Each structure stands twice: as structure tokens, then as C-alpha cells.
């Protein structure tokens, strides 16, 4: 188990993806259970991995017994095992939730859908774990293609949104490929650690600079850094609810992870922040993205679209953390990968519940009757909203705290102001919704009043209709409180162990 661990999760998902269509020939209903088993096992393995790595040091696996730099190597260090755990846990909860809405949103398509989710997660885990640049491209494409498929299975507008995402995403991946082509030509190796060692010996090579720029643009498109974010709003809005809940917390974070890995661990901190200061560019673009995303989110009328623009803003925080290129910024960025995954995951799941209950998720139609129909979802929404605004003790406060410290450390007061102003902007568009669900009475009178005392059940413990819809949302959302209170442990045990050299 130890030595094979790094490769287990991607292979597990690959096996699941292949077996689902095969097994479903006999019986369609087998798709969901297989998915859940695979997802659950992946969480177990990821948890085991991270504990092992934190106690005993990095794990590597060499495919086919070929040693690097010739062979392809999979590496689990604190960063990759951390991100893998986050991705798999969120995916688990989203997939658990999907059983309730599957039939309504994608009737009759459960087999291909779940197979695609398995492929998506296979790609995601492969990207996280791999130590080889080209292998990363392969898994990136697996991940992206599955994503295009997942988004395309949706409403009428979904294929169009997916198509546009496909074009832009392929351009991004192709730029990445071109970038590693340059790197290969100059260094002769595709192994990340090997390239890391070779690069300092060839300073001032324009091909290296070209490679860096191309990789940055490529991953920037996938990460939806402003102004390369154009594909995101439509893709998240028109995709089926489960896809949004799956892609939003995971998709752009994987790209951010790749950027962190390549910028800081392959090219090196010194190169990306001083020789060719691409981190400054990333920081500025992210700052603009934060403001742009927050402002656009305020103008939206439909919840999923609002959350999509909000995601552009939130990925800006991670980009800002990367762009600061100091330990605190890095900590903020990595912690925000975790925090945002949980925040956006729970928000999109609540939007899904909303759609299931009322058929739509327009903000104008929200009113206080939802508090009786979906009390726990609304409570989960509130906690997640407070976290997005950045109020203690939720997790969101702490990402901003570290980013603020990082910004002050570099003396970048503008970024500090951006972080703080964006919290206020977040408060505006979230409180708009909170006001509606807590204060605006429902339009028609059916003799139903809003006294919570009149609800059925035991005081406030009125349940919602389907537990499979309610429980994952509540767990993900209330975890934000636990993550917030325990964030120092996460930072010290995990993130600080893997601060890139030179910071």
C-alpha cells in the first residue's frame, strides 16, 4: 500500500469510470452505488496518504519501475496530498448529494454522467499527484474533457457554454503543452524535480522565459484569471446543479495548484518573482479580478450566475496569494483552496436544493417561506455566506487574515485594500439574499404565518424533505466553522511543511 499509494486514487477512478458503463449494461441503477463506493474509498486512501506523508515524509511511485528522470513519477508531498484530500472529500459530498437531484436534472443519463464524474476525478487526482510535466498535460486533458461533458449534459444552453469552454480550455491546455515543449527542448527532461535542478544552470535563456509565459497563460485560462475568465459564468450557470457543485470547487483550484507547483517548485521562487516578475503580473490581474468578480456578482439576478462571478473573485484571492510570493501569501492561497472548495461547494449545493424545491433559483423570487421549506439549507447558506464575507469564526476570515498579513509583509497596501473592500462587496450581495430569505414574507396568503413556532417537529429541528439533499449540505457548510477554528493546525501541520524554497 505504501509504495503504490500515490497511483491508487487516479487508477481507482479510472477503473470506476470504465466499469460503470460496462456494469450498467445489465442494470442501470448500478452507476450511482459504484460511484459512491469509488469516491468513499478515495477519501479513505487520501486520508491515509496525508497522514502517512505528514508523519514519514514524501511518497513516490515510479510507473513501470522506471526511475526518474526517465520514468514517470508520482509524488505525494504535503501539498499534493492536502489538495487531493480536499478534492476527494468535496467530490464525495457533492456526489452523495447528487442522488436526490439526478433524476430531475438529467433523466435517463445517470450512467454516462457518473462515468464522466469518475473520469473527471481521475483527471483531477492525476494532475495533483503527478511529477511529470507531460503526464500532467495528459491528465489535464482527461480532466478537461470530462468537464466539458459534465457541463454539456444540461439545459438547452449548456452545450453552447460547454463549447465555448472547450475552445478556450483547449487553447489553454495547448499553450501549456507548448510551454513544456520549450522547457523540454532547453532542459531535456520532463520530470519536475529534474527540471528544477537543471534550470539554474541555464540562466537568462529566452526559451525558459517563453515557457513560463506560455504555461502561465495556459493555466491562467483554466484558472479563470481575469481577463481570461470569459468561459466561466456561462459554464457554471447552465451546467446541471451537480456539475456546478463539482466543477466550481475543484476545477479552477486544480489549475491554481498546477500554477503553484510549476511556478514555485519547478521554476523556483527567485526566478518567477525577480528574474521574470510574473508573480507581480499575477497579483495585479488577480486584484482586478477580485474587484471585477465582486462587482459583477452584485449585478446578477440569478443565484448560480452570481456564484459564478463570485468564484472569479475568489480565485483572485488564490491568485493574489500566489502573486505575493511570500510565505504568508502562499499560506493564504493554499488555505483558500480548502476554504473556497467548501464554501462554493455548499453554496452551489444549496442552489441545487433551491432548484429542486422551487424549480428555479432567481434571487428576486427568494422569500421567507424558504425558511420553512428548507430550514437547514438556508442555515447552511448563512454559514457559507458569513464565511465568504470573512467573519470569524468561519474559515473565510482566516484566508483573508493570512493574505492581509502577506500583503503587508510585501508592503503592497493596494492589495490589502482590495482584500478588505472585496469583503464589503461580498457582504452586499450575500446580505441581499439573506435579507430576502429571512425578512421578505411570501407573496400569497394561504393562512400560513411565519412563526417558526408553528413549524412541525421539535422546535427548530424541522427536517427537509430528503435527507440525502440536506445532510451533505449541512456537513460541508458547518465544516467551515471547524476549519476556521482549527486553521492553525492545518497551517502548521500541512502548509508550513511545504513552503517553497526561497520564500
Amino acid at each position, binding site marked *: 500500500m505504501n509504495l503504490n499509494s500515490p497511483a491508487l486514487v487516479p487508477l481507482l477512478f479510472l477503473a470506476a469510470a470504465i466499469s460503470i458503463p460496462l456494469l450498467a449494461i445489465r442494470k442501470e441503477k448500478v452507476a450511482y452505488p459504484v460511484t459512491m463506493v469509488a469516491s468513499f474509498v478515495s477519501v479513505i486512501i487520501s486520508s491515509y496518504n496525508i497522514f502517512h506523508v505528514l508523519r514519514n515524509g514524501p511518497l513516490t511511485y515510479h510507473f513501470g519501475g522506471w526511475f526518474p528522470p526517465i520514468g514517470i513519477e508520482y509524488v505525494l508531498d504535503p501539498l499534493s496530498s492536502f489538495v487531493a484530500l480536499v478534492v476527494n472529500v468535496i467530490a464525495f459530498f457533492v456526489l452523495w448529494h447528487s442522488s436526490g437531484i439526478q433524476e430531475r436534472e438529467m433523466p435517463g443519463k445517470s450512467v454516462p454522467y457518473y462515468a464522466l464524474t469518475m473520469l473527471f476525478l481521475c483527471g483531477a487526482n492525476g494532475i495533483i499527484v503527478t511529477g511529470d510535466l507531460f503526464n500532467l498535460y495528459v491528465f489535464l486533458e482527461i480532466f478537461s474533457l470530462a468537464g466539458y461533458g459534465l457541463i454539456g449534459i444540461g439545459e438547452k444552453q449548456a452545450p453552447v457554454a460547454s463549447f465555448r469552454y472547450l475552445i478556450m480550455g483547449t487553447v489553454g491546455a495547448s499553450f501549456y503543452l507548448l510551454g513544456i515543449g520549450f522547457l523540454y527542448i532547453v532542459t531535456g527532461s520532463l520530470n519536475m524535480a529534474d527540471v528544477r535542478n537543471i534550470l539554474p544552470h541555464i540562466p537568462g535563456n529566452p526559451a525558459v522565459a517563453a515557457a513560463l509565459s506560455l504555461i502561465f497563460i495556459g493555466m491562467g485560462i483554466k484558472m479563470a484569471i481575469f481577463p481570461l475568465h470569459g468561459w466561466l459564468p456561462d459554464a457554471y450557470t447552465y451546467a446541471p446543479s451537480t456539475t456546478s457543485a463539482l466543477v466550481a470547487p475543484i476545477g479552477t483550484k486544480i489549475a491554481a495548484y498546477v500554477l503553484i507547483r510549476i511556478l514555485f517548485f519547478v521554476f523556483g521562487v527567485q526566478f518567477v518573482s525577480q528574474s521574470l516578475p510574473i508573480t507581480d503580473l499575477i497579483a495585479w490581474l488577480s486584484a482586478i479580478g477580485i474587484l471585477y468578480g465582486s462587482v459583477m456578482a452584485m449585478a446578477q439576478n440569478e443565484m448560480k450566475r452570481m456564484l459564478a462571478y463570485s468564484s472569479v473573485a475568489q480565485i483572485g484571492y488564490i491568485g493574489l496569494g500566489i502573486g505575493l510570493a511570500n510565505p504568508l501569501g502562499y499560506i493564504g492561497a493554499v488555505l483558500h483552496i480548502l476554504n473556497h472548495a467548501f464554501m462554493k461547494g455548499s453554496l452551489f449545493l444549496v442552489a441545487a436544493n433551491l432548484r429542486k424545491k422551487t424549480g428555479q433559483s432567481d434571487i428576486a423570487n427568494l422569500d421567507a417561506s424558504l425558511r420553512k421549506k428548507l430550514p437547514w439549507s438556508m442555515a447552511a447558506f448563512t454559514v457559507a455566506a458569513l464565511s465568504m464575507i470573512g*467573519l*470569524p*469564526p468561519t474559515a473565510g*476570515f482566516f484566508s483573508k487574515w493570512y493574505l492581509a498579513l502577506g500583503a503587508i509583509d510585501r508592503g503592497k497596501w493596494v492589495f490589502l485594500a482590495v482584500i478588505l473592500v472585496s*469583503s464589503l462587496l461580498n457582504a452586499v450581495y450575500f446580505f441581499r439574499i439573506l435579507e430576502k430569505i429571512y*425578512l421578505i414574507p411570501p407573496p400569497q396568503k394561504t393562512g400560513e404565518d411565519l*412563526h417558526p413556532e408553528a413549524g412541525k417537529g421539535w422546535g427548530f429541528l424541522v427536517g427537509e424533505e430528503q435527507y440525502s439533499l440536506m445532510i451533505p449540505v449541512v456537513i460541508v457548510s458547518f465544516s467551515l466553522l471547524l476549519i476556521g477554528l482549527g486553521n492553525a493546525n492545518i497551517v502548521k501541520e500541512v502548509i508550513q511543511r511545504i513552503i517553497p524554497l526561497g520564500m
Partner: protein
Amino acid sequence: MTSPEMYISTLPFYAVMVSLIAMPLILLSSRHANLREFWTLAASIVKFSLVFLLLPGALAGRIAGFTFWEISPGIALALKADQFGVFFALIASGLWILTSIYSIGYVRGLKEHKQTRYFASFAVCLSATIGIAFAANLLTFVFFYEILTIATYPLVIHKETKIAVSAGRKYLVYTLTAGLLLIAATAWTYRIAGTLDFRAGGLFGDASFSPAAITVLFLLFLGGVGVKAAVMPLHSWLPAAMAAPTPVSALLHAVAVVKSGVFGVVRVVGFVFGPALMRQFDLNIFLATVAGVTIILASLLAFRQDNLKHRLAYSTVGHLSYIVLGAALISPASLVGGLLHIANHATMKITLFFCAGAIYVRHHKEKISELDGIGRVMPWTMGAFTMAAIGLAGIPPLNGFISKWQLGLGSLQAGELLPLAVLVLSGILNAGYFAPIIFRAFLKPPTVPYKHGEASPAMVIPLVITAVLSLLLGLDPDLFFHFHRLAVAVSGSILGGIVQ
């Protein structure tokens, strides 16, 4: 003076957590009103008892500390029941007991909706307030400060009318922005000083500053705590928040929220910057000016309010700046006076708000112009009102006189006559805007006969208690709680620079 010794105790932790534990119990008992009220009362009594148990130690210079766990590498979520913290916690928790009794009378008298949400939010607010009182470092302070903001929001918008909702929005805009400024200031302080632990006499140690940097930092802090402390021009949320039910205005906006603000101001002046730094960069002059302007302007604006609660709100704005002024003067007596005023103003103002609420519940009157002759039908209520008003004007033998006297003395000690003049003028203005109310209530015949008499005992008893307490504390400031001794100890620690 013995130097303080620290010991580990779970008392501060339990004092904070009691009402937090009560909150889910309150939510679960939403269908059984008496059980629900029982949780509130029980929590308030237990909380006050726990804080009271910390008093002897604090007086003897022994500080109870409790560390939750690390909340950021190198900074722990930690509580420290030092003298200042115990002082504030006593006031907040003690007055919560009275406010809970009063609230029960109030919401039942009005048959208010959403009572469960009301009592649950109150419980969380008090938890946050005690957390603020006992915060051992700036990050813990910010942590509970923001929780207080969020927990008070449901109370501000309680009535759910358009006015209440827009008041809530204004409140949030002001307080959330303040929170952000405070976070920025805290982060910056951490980078400069390497620590966020409150230290009497300042935590910056030997760090050197450029005048511009320190001024900006101070302004950030002032913006952060000044909103809750209602210094002008950051005060407009307070009159707007009068849209909340009166017990909310009474406790939160006369005791918990605003006093958290001034508590924060004194912590910043005395325990973060320290007297030396404040004087070195003339920050104290700036603060004193802001406070002085606020006192006068607020008192003048109070005249123009016909709505009783609004007049009380502006009066609160003015009196809060007494405390800020006391902090700004940084002299022994001014600090004592400022601290005493935290307690004294609390008892007097809460009496006034209780009276306003009683009048509203019984007679549904909000405007001063409608209160002719009400003293005849509500003798106890208006009697207490009169006592409290006299006290706020600074007339002996009520406690308001004591804190005012100390502040005046402190002004002379600092060698400044202008603050003294401001205080005297403000006293006259106070009398000026309270007198007509009393005059109308007792000496003018009612325009329309009143249908009801006194308010229910659940409301009258607390307000009589607070009024009498104001009188007793005026006669002996050290009665029951040793407020005076605590205030002198805190003042001494700030000025003497004794490390806590």
C-alpha cells in the same frame, strides 16, 4: 503595588461559553416559552456569578488566563481576566440579568413575534461581549468583535419593518467596514510588533515609527473601534439602530455594543499604543479633539429629537465620548473617570431606556411631545427616569457626578482647561435636554387621559433597581463590585507600564 501574577483558570472560558451553550437550548425550547426564558435567566445568572468569582482575584492582582488553542501560527485565541476585563464583564453580565427580566416583560407585553430568535441572539451577543472583555490579544478581540456584529444584526432588524431593515443595513455597513479596518490595523500591528498581546503601557516596545505610519495605524484602529464607540462622524448607525426593540437598545446599544467600542478605544490607547507613544505623536490631542467635538455636537443634536429613544441615542453618543476623552487625556484621574463612566453611564442609560420601553409597552407613546403628565400615572418609571437624568447631568449624589468629577480632575492633571469646559458645558446641555421631559411628565396635565397606569412589575422592578444602583454607586463607588478600586488599578497599570 504588587505586580500581577497570572494563573490558569477555566472560569473565563466558562463565563464566555455559558450563554453560547444556552443558545441551542433556547432554540430547541421555542415552543415552550417559559422553559426558553428559564434558559436565558439561568445563563445570565450563571454568567454573572462566574465573572463575580473572578473579582477577588482581579482585585488582588491575580489574573486568570485561559488559552483556547492557536488560531493562527504564533497567536492563540486566549482569554485573560485582567482588571479592565473583569470590570467590563461585571457590568455587561450584571446588566444582562436585569435586561433579561425586563425583556420578558417587554416582549410578552407587546406579544412580539420571533421571540426565540430574539432571546437566542441576545445570548450569543453576551457571549461575544464577555469574549471581548476577556480578550488577551488583538486577534481574539477582533474575533469576538465581529461575532458581536453579526449576532446583533437579528436584534436590530427584529421588528422587520422597512425602517428596521434599513437600520440593519446601515448598522452592517458601518460595523463591517469598521471590522475590516480593525483587521487591517491588527495585521499591520502584528507585522511591526511581532505580538498582539495586550500589554498595559503599550505593546510596541522599542519599535520605531514614521509619523505618517503611526498616524495611519492609529486612524485605522480608531475607525475600527470608533464606529462601535460612536465617535463622530462614525456615529449615525446608533440613532438608526433605535428601530430595535427597547431592551435591545438598552443593553446592546447602551451597554454591550457601544461599551465594547469604548472598551476597545481604551485598550488601543492604553494597551496597544501606550501613553508614551500617544503623547510622542500627538495622537492623544487628536483623539481628545474628536471626543470633545462629539460630546458637544451630540448634546446639541439631542435637543432636536422629539422621539424619546432618539434623544437618548444622541445622549449616549455624547457620553461615550466622555470615556474616549478620559482615555485621550491619559492622566490618572481622567482614566479613572473614564472607566467609572463606563459603569456609571451604563446603569443610568439603561434606566432611561427601560423607562422609554415601559412607556412604549404600556401607552404606545414614543414622542416626548406626547408625554405630558405621564409622571402621574407612572410614578415609579418617571421617578427612576428623573434620577438617571440627574445623574447624567452630573449632579450629585448620583454616580454620574463621580465620574464627571474625576474626568474634570483628570483634565486639570493633564494641564488642559478646554476639556474641563467641554465637560461643564455638556452637563448643562444634558440638563437642558432632559429637563423638559421631566417637566412635562410631572408638571403638565395630560392632553389625552391615559388609559393605563404603571408598567408590569417585570419591567418596573429592573428599572428601579438600576436607578437605585446609580444612586448607591454615587454614594459609594466601591459598593458591591469595587469599581473604583478596579478603575484605579487599571489606570495605574496603564500609566505605570506594569506588564500584565
